[in-house]
């Protein structure tokens, strides 16, 4: 018998203004143990979808079932209980700048568990070792490079051994080496923790190498889905343009504008 999905998004719509919804009729199911990519252009609603999964936003219509619970109707305690089983890596790490690397990783442990100091120390070192930064434990976040900060944040987000790890644009602004490290870590941590990972990204080529399944979004809808291989071979014009990064395709280079000649006032002369 197949296990139920860890995240189920059913017919979800979301928008601040009903006339301009950010998400429309989004349907997806994320199986346990997988690494799933949600991809698409900037502004297509993928980060909003991630925030719906994280229960930071509530859907205006439809239902989001996360870790077996509907996010709508959860009270503060229920929400926090759910989030304790979740980890999230923010785009630029969001490390606490007044705490050292060690204390950043120790933060969720100190807040939620009443551990003796030696055990806490060992746990933090274990997590830092997993991301290769045990030697940087005493540094402050300002002393870290972008890639290192991302790895520390990753160590912090897995501190409580989450069942679900959410990545918000984890590859942005990384050099090729840091990038390779993060890709490898996402896969390794997912498999060793027995967790499920959701990666929101627009770095399609890179992400296709790490994910098991892809949802492709445009204008607030899921327009294509499949394995990385299927996405690479997709006939959908938008997906093709996006995967190949070409200028030709349904997404125009120019933002909608009046006639060029009118803007330069050529007609009046």
């Amino acid at each position, binding site marked *: 018998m197949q296990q139920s999905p860890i995240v189920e998004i059913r017919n979800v719509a979301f928008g601040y203004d009903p006339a301009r919804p950010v998400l429309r009729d989004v349907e997806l199911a994320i199986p346990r143990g997988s690494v799933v990519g949600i991809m698409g252009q900037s502004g297509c609603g993928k980060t909003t979808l991630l925030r719906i999964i*994280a229960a*930071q936003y509530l859907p205006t219509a439809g239902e989001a079932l996360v870790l077996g619970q509907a996010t709508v109707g959860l009270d*503060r305690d229920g*929400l*926090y*209980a759910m*989030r*304790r089983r*979740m*980890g*999230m890596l*923010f*785009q*630029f790490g*969001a*490390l*606490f*700048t007044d705490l050292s690397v060690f204390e950043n990783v120790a*933060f*969720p442990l100190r*807040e*939620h568990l009443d551990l003796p100091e030696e055990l806490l120390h060992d746990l933090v070192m274990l997590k830092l070792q997993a991301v290769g930064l045990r030697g940087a434990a005493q540094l402050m976040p300002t002393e870290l490079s972008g890639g290192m900060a991302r790895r520390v*944040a990753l160590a*912090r*987000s897995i501190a*409580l051994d989450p069942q679900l790890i959410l990545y918000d644009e984890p590859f942005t602004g990384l050099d090729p080496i840091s990038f390779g490290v993060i890709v490898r870590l996402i896969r390794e941590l997912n498999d060793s923790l027995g967790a499920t990972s959701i990666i929101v990204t627009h770095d399609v080529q890179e992400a296709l190498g790490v994910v098991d399944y892809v949802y492709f979004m445009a204008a607030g809808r899921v327009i294509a889905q499949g394995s990385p291989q299927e996405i690479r071979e997709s006939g959908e014009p938008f997906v093709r343009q996006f995967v190949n990064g070409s200028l030709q395709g349904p997404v125009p280079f120019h933002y909608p504008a009046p006639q060029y000649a009118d803007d330069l006032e050529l007609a009046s002369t």
Partner: protein
Amino acid sequence: MQLEQLREHARGRLERIGNVVTSQVWRLGFASRFLFYLVMHSGTALRRFGLTMKEIYFTGVLSLIIILVSGLFVGMVLALQGYETLQRFGASESLGVLVALSLVRELGPVVAGLLFASRAGSAITAEIGLMKATEQISAMEMMAVDPIARVVAPRFWGGVISMPLLAALFSAMGIFGGYLVGVQLIGVDAGAFWSQMQAAVDLRNDILNGVIKSVVFGVAVTWISVFEGYDAIPTAEGVSRATTRTVVTSSLAILALDFVLTALMFTGGNNQ
């Protein structure tokens, strides 16, 4: 036709005024709910008092220099100006009373409050605003840690505890400054300076009222600071605007509250 336009114009203006008023009332309501939530979730800040102690250090101890130096100078100026006026009436021995009452009742809480708002209040707003802008607040929420309980409440209580202590130190330094100038420099009799002060300053009417004022200002300034930081638009411009609003709103609040409190405390109250 023109009348119609005029009417339209007036309606537009009225609408704008209405919008501003309702949005301000809404904001005040939001700030009040925020304060209520903050007080209700202060358990962590009080149980793990180390968190609050750290904030007392940042808002209180690090404000000491500006508070002590300002207090000293305000007291010195008070003595110079006070002596100048008092000696015309042959009452220069009352200099100690004048300096002490001015400081304890008014200048201590008010000036220390204004300095506190610009030194510590702005720092609290900027810090919380930047934490929000760099997603540290969101990260905390995602770790199932309530940022109001963990970040805002310790800063609030830190400020509320620091402010009366700073005001008291300001007044003490001011009286010392008054002594330096009045007794050491001008030559007012030291015995008269201190004994008249001791006889005239009442523990309940003067000192306790001064302390109450400084507690009220401490709550007002810190409340405004944490709320503006938490409510800041999470961009560089948003944080800068929020910081400015903290200093302006806190200063106006201190002056307005001071008037109200003075009216309640010192008008006719002494005769009863």
